[in-house]
């Protein structure tokens, strides 16, 4: 090969240019992440105090106040979503992992993947006509159901993937002891996969905790404490939206504070999920 030729030099020049642009692209993509983190931290930190977590929002013009109702509301909504979304998701995932070769199972898997790409606002519309129109009012229940629908495909696919990672020898050992198949699946396979599934569930919780669009016309919003799950309920995400588009300086400050709380929660869930996965892999 003629290493000194012009072709050789040109090829290596192109190689460098392309590799450089790939690195550049990666850096460019991370700039918004850094910028978002910076803005939310700097503008939000001032609004975080004890009042933020315990007080109700103050009317326009009055300083102070907090978003205690929205913090509790988000927790309620996510709790309800877990209640409605996790058990069916895990059972569906168990089905896919155990009996996953039928045409029906392939269709379920495909539907779950397609469903995770459905816009969250259309899920809001669906739950609106299903629950809100039936019960005649906005409620935390409706919001929780909307979030649960978003969680379902994620939990299903995570459960399936993690169950498939459990060594078959464990099942064979259990079956060899005369345990029926269903108990072997639940007590041996699922139990072994459970820590991993928990991490997957954490990630799906992180995703729905920040969802706003499906809550706009299900849980709606509330300036006060909600006394039950059948009442309109405030959430951090909807309040960030409502405050951000309002013309009031004080409300903007609250929006940044709420964004900081939400973002820290979501990032914490993501980072700890990542950390848990890594320590588990190392332990093996």
């Amino acid at each position, binding site marked *: 090969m003629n290493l000194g030729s012009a072709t050789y030099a040109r090829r290596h020049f192109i190689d460098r240019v392309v590799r450089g642009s790939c690195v550049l692209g990666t850096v460019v993509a991370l700039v918004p992440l850094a910028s978002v983190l910076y803005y939310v931290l700097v503008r939000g930190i001032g609004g975080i105090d004890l009042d933020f977590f315990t007080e109700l929002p103050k009317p326009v013009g009055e300083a102070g106040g907090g978003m205690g109702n929205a913090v509790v509301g988000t927790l309620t909504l996510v709790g309800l979503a877990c209640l409605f979304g996790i058990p069916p998701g895990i*059972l569906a995932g168990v*089905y896919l992992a155990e009996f996953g070769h039928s045409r029906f199972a392939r269709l379920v898997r495909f539907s779950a993947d397609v469903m995770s790409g459905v816009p969250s606002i259309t899920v809001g519309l669906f739950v609106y006509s299903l629950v809100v129109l039936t019960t005649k009012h906005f409620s935390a229940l409706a919001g929780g159901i909307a979030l649960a629908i978003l969680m379902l*495909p994620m939990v299903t696919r995570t459960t399936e993937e993690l169950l498939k990672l459990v060594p078959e020898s464990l099942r064979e050992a259990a079956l060899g002891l005369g345990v029926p198949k269903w108990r072997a699946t639940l007590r041996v396979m699922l139990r072994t996969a459970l820590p991993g599934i928990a991490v997957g569930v954490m990630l799906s919780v992180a995703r729905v905790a920040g969802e706003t*669009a499906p809550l706009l016309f299900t849980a709606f919003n509330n300036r006060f404490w909600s006394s039950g799950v059948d009442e309109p309920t405030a959430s951090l995400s909807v309040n960030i939206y409502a405050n951000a588009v309002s013309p009031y300086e004080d409300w903007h400050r609250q929006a940044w504070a709420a964004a900081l709380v939400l973002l820290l929660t979501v990032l914490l869930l993501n980072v700890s999920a990542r950390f848990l996965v890594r320590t588990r892999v190392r332990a093996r």
Partner: protein
Amino acid sequence: MTARPDVSLARPRSKLQLAFGREANLGDLAFRRITALFAGSVIVLLVWMALEMGLASKLSFARFGLGFVTSTDWDPVRDQYGSLPFVFGTVVSSLVALLIAVPISLGIAIYLSELAHPRLRTPIGFLVELLAAVPSVVYGLWGIFALAPWLRETVQPLLAKTLGFLPFFRGPQHGFGMLAGGIVLSIMITPTISSVSREVMRAVPAALREGAIGLGATRWEVVRVAVLPYARSGLVGATILGLGRALGETMAITMVIGNRAEISASLFAPSYTMASVIANEFTEATGRLYLSALAEVGLLLFAVTVVLNIFARLLVWRVGKLPEGGQL
């Protein structure tokens, strides 16, 4: 040993029993049925959503027919509903987003799967995925108070000065508008496109790369002749998945796109998307036809994203199934 109920009482030999090669436990049968029920609920939900929205939009469809998507007249006061401005805003903002996000995402995917030092791959991949973890509404907040002012004061004057001869970069510079919407969307779909592309590239058999290396290819040439052709359909799939996300994205774009139902060639002009009009007007909509029209917008959005997703998944799955050295 568990006591086995007399299966012959429950059912004569079923397919299941034959598959197990022994008499099936009644518990096993129940277990399979129950889990199948929940698995089936995923399909049921998807179909139900389509039906429910179809039902809700019946009134509007009966009234406007196909004119619903070709008319630009959206006027709740006169009860006239045409969704073309929203369709336009959704499609154009998503295309702007793809224009920005696809090259960057491909760069990330190539960097992470082919170029980066193995120790850097995990942390950088994680950071890129964090972009997807930031809630949409937080991007919206950032878009209002950080991105839009920056666009107004720095980017838009610069674009108008250098590329102002094009119709895309003319008109008043508000910051808010199509450009801001497209940029926010591009940030949000970059992690989707790049992570799927990376998975697809990872599925390319090592033998192909080794072959190219053995012929003296540079690293870029390896990517060009071995990785990209093999991964092509998966990369198209990744792009379509990103498009699907962009079309349905609601909060962030609602907060920065300006929300005005106009069709303008300029990217500086405010626009409106299908998801945004639902978010903004649904709770305040009075009148059955108005609600029905909004539901029809939702149905359109749902149908388009479902079709795109089906198409994209098929493309991505195809790469995993290719035989080694297979041609597309």
